[in-house]
């Protein structure tokens, strides 16, 4: 998403009000020290540095944030949250924005990342509470292939899969069925996952 920061922004309080409950300190208390960006290991892949995300959140630039790349390439290492002198949960804000972008059905900047998370939860729900790594890898590989033939990568992954299989590290059967699978089903249903 292109954000022209030279154009005057029309500030709005609506977003910071919605974010107020994320973390122990409201994100609106950010005073732009930029410590989050200084410690972030993923800045090389971001379109907005974390301090900019915070600033745009305070200014209510919802559209720009929901369409940005930063929230999806954030690796959730929580260095930013840990080091924020104001105790703002910056990584929590990133998560909130991801969830909101999907809820609003926005075109996300990194569909692979979003798809991986979705397949993960799907696989968990289908298997009744524990993850089937095989099912997840299979589904994600099919998805990647449908987005475009990337045979080099496919070959790499197949070699890796074979390497793991030979070493007894790929479980071919699904995870065991849980006694609490009814509870799990309920949790997925009530949270809309």
């Amino acid at each position, binding site marked *: 998403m292109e954000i022209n920061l030279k154009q005057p922004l029309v500030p709005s309080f609506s977003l910071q009000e919605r974010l107020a409950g994320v973390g122990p300190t409201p994100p609106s208390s950010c005073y732009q020290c930029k410590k989050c960006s200084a410690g972030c290991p993923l800045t090389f*892949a971001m379109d907005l540095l974390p301090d900019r995300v915070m600033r745009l959140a305070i200014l209510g630039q919802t559209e720009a944030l929901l369409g940005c790349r930063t929230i999806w390439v954030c690796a959730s290492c929580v260095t930013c949250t840990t080091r924020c002198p104001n105790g703002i949960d910056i990584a929590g804000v990133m998560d909130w924005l991801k969830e909101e972008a999907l809820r609003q059905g926005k075109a996300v900047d990194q569909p692979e990342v979003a798809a991986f998370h979705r397949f993960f939860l799907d696989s968990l729900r289908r298997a009744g509470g524990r*993850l089937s790594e095989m099912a997840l890898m299979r589904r994600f590989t099919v998805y990647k292939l449908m987005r475009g033939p990337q045979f080099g990568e496919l070959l790499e992954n197949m070699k890796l899969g074979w390497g793991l299989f030979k070493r007894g590290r790929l479980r071919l059967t699904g995870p065991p069925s849980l006694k609490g699978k009814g509870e799990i089903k309920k949790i997925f249903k009530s949270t809309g996952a």
Partner: protein
Amino acid sequence: MKVSYYPGCSLEGTAADYAASIAAVAPLLGVELAELEDWNCCGASAAHSINHQLSFELPARNLVLAQKAERDVVVPCALCFNRLKAAEKERQRRDEVLGDGFKIWDLLDFLSQESFLATLKQKAVRPLTGLKAVGYYGCLASRPPAITDKADWENPKELERLLQVLQAEPLDWSYKTDCCGAGLAMSRPDLIDTLVSRLYDRALAAGAECFVVACQMCQANLDLSQGRISKKLNKDYYLPVFYFTELMGLAMGHPEAERWLARHLVDPRPLLRDKGLL
């Protein structure tokens, strides 16, 4: 000492080597791991990224199970540990504390208690003399301290202490808790290449011959991608990635130790043979 054990999903699959070394080492240190009955997945990065409520409710169910078991819970996966701790904090915040009389430990922290290190020292009959290693902690066992309750989150020292007990050579470096990006390993492997190759280079610059880790996400990311990254960057990286429990087992002379190591993609056995440790 009997504790509840929450292995997490990958220890039933890709981290079977880690699981085997834990199962072997714990009894040698006098720990009985009672697997938490009917545990479920913590939801991992996927849940906290795209469904906040789910990321609380999935681990919270495990806390209810743990409460019934009335024992401390030990967790070998940094991500699971973090999610269970986050759910614990959230429950406290919501005043839903049902008298949680148990503590959630990450495995490294748990086994680094003085009494276990003393036992280990006695039983480490095959010291790992001359093995130059950097301890790599990754993110989520220590960060954020408001969740993990860790005292030394920027510069943890448990792995170094452990390596000293095993008489290996722990080296100092500045990347102990830098992220390897494991959560993006499938969706953006190109980003991993940047993050992980930096860790390789820094470890080599510190004089390391291998990594020691306490998280199967870190292990997988550093071990499984090494071939790909070497090829891509035209380098010849050879940096085996040990679980700390494997080194404990090796030093205590556990007969299965070599079998766990054989399941890595970057085979550590040539390094160990070279050092006369195998």
